[in-house]
């Protein structure tokens, strides 16, 4: 069975192409699946997270995956970030250091994830020259995404992440994909609310809404991310189930996709040219907290 893959950018069309791949083989077992990349002339490397998640999910059903006809430019980027080493290719050194490697984590791997972000991003000289405040906020943002996946997804197949610095665009994109129950089901199971997939994402990003129950409060992760990218001039994009949601330049847009992603993908795009200090307008002291 062959699936022709077209260009993959981190936009609705890119996601439609990937979920089309999943929809085609979702019920296949012990099948040989060939992803024909002969017509893929561009691949936003951060999209390796959802792509890898889908391939892992299909592989977990006993299918054998092969990626064929990969064009040299695309092969170079997917080799540099380590993605193709998961599919039998040799690793290639990332000379210009623009990738944050593709990795799969288990839910208990918080510390490995923290070390990965620290070593593969924060300490690398080649990465964009950002202020200390922006670096800190970026790092904490990606931890928030990972924590969200750990706390909410109930995934048993893992969490997939990948990032890419685009020097010409002055953007740094980082994606975390999980193969969990998705936001719509999570909201339904915990609150009884029946929403469409994109409405469920919108609900989860608003005000004090949270699906957390029990002794530990929650409901801040996605709001903190949204606040940060709004100030930074960046973007947050969430795909969950068959819903697409984005926040860019303070504007939220959400709509249904034609099929389901088998989990949730959160991508944060930061504007690396941002020189804000992220200081607060009203200074807090330690006695103001409780």
């Amino acid at each position, binding site marked *: 069975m062959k699936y022709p893959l077209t260009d993959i950018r981190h936009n609705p069309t890119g996601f439609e192409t990937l979920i089309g791949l999943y929809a085609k083989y979702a019920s296949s077992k012990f099948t040989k699946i060939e992803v024909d990349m002969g017509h893929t002339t561009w691949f936003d490397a951060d999209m390796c997270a959802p792509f890898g998640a889908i391939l892992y999910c299909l592989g977990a059903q006993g299918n054998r995956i092969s990626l064929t006809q990969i064009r040299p430019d695309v092969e170079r980027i997917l080799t540099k970030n380590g993605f193709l080493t998961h599919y039998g290719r040799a690793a290639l050194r990332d000379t210009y250091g623009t990738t944050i490697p593709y990795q799969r984590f288990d839910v208990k791997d*918080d*510390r490995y994830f*923290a*070390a990965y972000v*620290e070593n593969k991003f924060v300490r690398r000289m080649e990465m964009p020259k950002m202020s200390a*405040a922006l670096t*800190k*906020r970026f*790092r*904490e943002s990606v*931890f*928030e995404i*990972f*924590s*969200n996946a*750990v*706390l909410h997804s109930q995934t048993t197949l893992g969490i997939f992440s990948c990032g890419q610095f685009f020097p010409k665009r002055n953007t740094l994109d980082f994606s975390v994909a999980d193969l969990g129950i998705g936001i719509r089901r999570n909201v339904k199971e915990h*609150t*009884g*609310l029946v*929403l469409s997939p994109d*409405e469920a994402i919108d*609900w989860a990003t608003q*005000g*004090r*809404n*949270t699906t957390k129950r029990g*002794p*530990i*409060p*929650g*409901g*801040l*992760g996605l709001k*903190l991310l949204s606040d940060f990218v709004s100030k930074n001039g960046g973007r947050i994009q969430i795909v969950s189930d068959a819903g697409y949601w984005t926040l860019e330049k303070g504007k939220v847009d959400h709509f249904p996709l034609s099929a389901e992603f088998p989990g949730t993908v959160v991508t944060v795009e930061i504007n690396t040219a941002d020189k804000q200090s*992220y*200081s*607060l307008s009203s*200074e*807090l*002291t*330690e006695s*103001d*907290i*409780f």
Partner: protein
Amino acid sequence: MSKELTISPFEVVGSPLCVASDDGQKVFERIQAALDAGHPVTVSFKNVTSLTSAFLNAAIGQLYGRFSEKDIKAKLKVAHLAQEDLALLKRVVDTAKAYFKDPDRFRQAERAVLGGSDA
């Protein structure tokens, strides 16, 4: 007067990266035990480089389900937090107070989303 105790998340977690909810739980258990024993507590974030809401919800936010706001204000202090981390902790604390104070708020949120009445 009971002796004031200092709890260091860096020491409890064993890392400057205080990002995981499970690690926050360990810090919560230390704070809870000290407060239960009547000791005032200072949580010193010295040498911590990264904090998340998930960690702070578990470590600090969850205290509001176990102790009164008055007790926490009287017996808990934090130290060595950068301005942006103080702001994050403040949001976590405000959210926790609301979470434990208003059990009906989920229904209110649901009504707001659905645009309907209580029926």
